């Protein structure tokens, strides 16, 4: 369920006096509240820095950092960095999907394979992929290959596990019914298997896509490979504090945009699913 979804219901108020502000119940009032809150936060930061309570050498004025970000947005170097990160993100994610889906399908549809691989997967999955950064550096160098390798590895587990458990969670009555009616396999695949595993796959993809961005930036930061993480490392080591904040801000924006896009895609893809039907505004 989306975090932002608020159930409209009558508030339980003890006193009968009129509330000072209306409750944020619809999209428009939430938007207004959100804008006010964001401005308040930025304003507070601006005030703390400009009154020297926070040292400007460490934390620049929000307006200065935002202005630097706008400046950066006109430079090709900035976009090359963003491109490098997103390229690692996309390639790693794609590779993980290509590996995880067929593998998950094999394991999820075969009880013996499932039993055999379960302990192995359960053991390998919690291992943080960042632990393998040194190995990646040694074997694949400090370029795109290392980044893609680490992203693929990190994205593999959520995708694989969601595929396996999605397949295993298919209602056995459905498959048994399809079998007794001798429904052809291809039709079974399209009308039973696919709708059943799609919500699982969507969850797996959402987790993998977020993890991929984090791992891509992490790899760049530790290894120093080109990308927004590499730019951040460069800004840090050259003491360019304002640029550093602007870049971190940009990284956060990329994260937000990614989250919003993923939500839209998921809602589109799973319009028919009960959770999404109810949540629709």
């Amino acid at each position: 369920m989306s975090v932002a979804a608020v159930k409209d219901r009558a508030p339980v108020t003890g006193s009968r006096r009129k509330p000072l502000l209306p409750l944020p119940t619809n999209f428009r009032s939430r938007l207004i509240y959100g804008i006010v809150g964001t401005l308040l936060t930025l304003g507070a930061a601006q005030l703390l820095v400009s009154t020297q309570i926070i040292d400007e050498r460490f934390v620049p004025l929000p307006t200065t950092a935002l202005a630097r970000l706008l400046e950066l947005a006109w430079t090709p170097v900035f976009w090359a960095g963003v491109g490098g990160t997103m390229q690692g993100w996309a390639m790693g994610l794609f590779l993980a999907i290509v590996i995880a889906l067929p593998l998950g399908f094999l394991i999820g549809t075969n009880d013996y394979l499932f039993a055999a691989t379960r302990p192995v997967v359960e053991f390998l999955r919690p291992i943080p992929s960042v632990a393998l950064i040194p190995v990646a550096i040694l074997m694949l160098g400090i370029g795109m290959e290392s980044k893609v390798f680490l992203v693929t590895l990190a994205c593999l587990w959520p995708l694989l596990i969601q595929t396996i458990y999605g397949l295993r969670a298919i209602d056995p009555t459905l498959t048994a019914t399809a079998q007794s009616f001798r429904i052809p396999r291809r039709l079974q695949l399209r009308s039973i298997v696919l709708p059943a595993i799609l919500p699982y796959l969507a969850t797996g993809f959402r987790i993998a896509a977020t993890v991929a961005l984090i791992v891509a930036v992490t790899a760049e930061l530790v290894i120093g490979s080109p990308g927004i993480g590499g730019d951040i490392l460069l800004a840090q080591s050259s003491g360019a504090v304002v640029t550093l904040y602007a870049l971190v801000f940009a990284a956060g924006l990329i994260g937000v945009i990614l989250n919003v896009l993923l939500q839209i895609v998921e809602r589109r893809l799973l319009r028919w699913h009960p959770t999404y039907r109810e949540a629709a505004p």
Partner: protein
Amino acid sequence: MTAMDVATTEALADKSRAIRRRRYRLLSVEVAFPVLVVVAVGVWTASAGLYFIPPLTGVLVAFQENWLFARMASDVLPSLSRMMIGFIGAVVIGVVVGFVLGQAHRLQAMFAPVLEFLRAIPAVALIPLVIIVLGLDDTAKVILITFICLWPVLLNTEAAIRGMDPGLRETARVYGIHWFRYELQVALPAAAPQIFAGMRTSLSLALIMVVVSEMMAGGNGIGVFVLQSQRSFAITDMWSGIVLIGIFGYVFNLLLIVVENRVLAWHHGANTAVE
């Protein structure tokens, strides 16, 4: 007993025997395959002669030499204590703020965009910022871990409180239950399953962050050891550190599941049909 009955009982017994046999087969596969994998990795690494992938036996020897218990006090304990302090701090702050935002709808609506933004920053990108502001010491690393582990706990708590059955709150009101008791004895148990879900995500993040922050900021710890080993081409040492991190990842995950099953036994018991 008619012949028909005898036939059905026999058929049923046959069937249950077949099921049992199948279960044994599945179990033996489940035990045998991982053993086979380990043996295969051992044989392959011993015979392949790759420089960067040393024999498994060598890694295990290095593991024993490094971690049992020569570097326990100098590297392992500092890493673990940083991780645990950061994690516990995040859980406390996350639950408290989540409780407040879950019930103060106006406040939540105001700061939702800010929280969404902070959460969306790839955590590691903050390391350089924290290094500039707070330096390279333990405090900086702990604050970093807390900041990163905060979001899953906070957002899960908030969503759980917001999604609570309004009947619970109204009932507590009708019975004149003090607000503090309500939060502690009604709201907290109701939100506990989701809080635990957030904690599980946070704990794996904590391990990742402690390793990465050590790799970037230096000092002591497992992350530093692994990166230093790589830079000095002490390949077996490097792998022994990676194995240790892997074991920690596995053990912490397991530990939290055990705690969760303990604490939420009532919940799982009440919802066996749902799970």
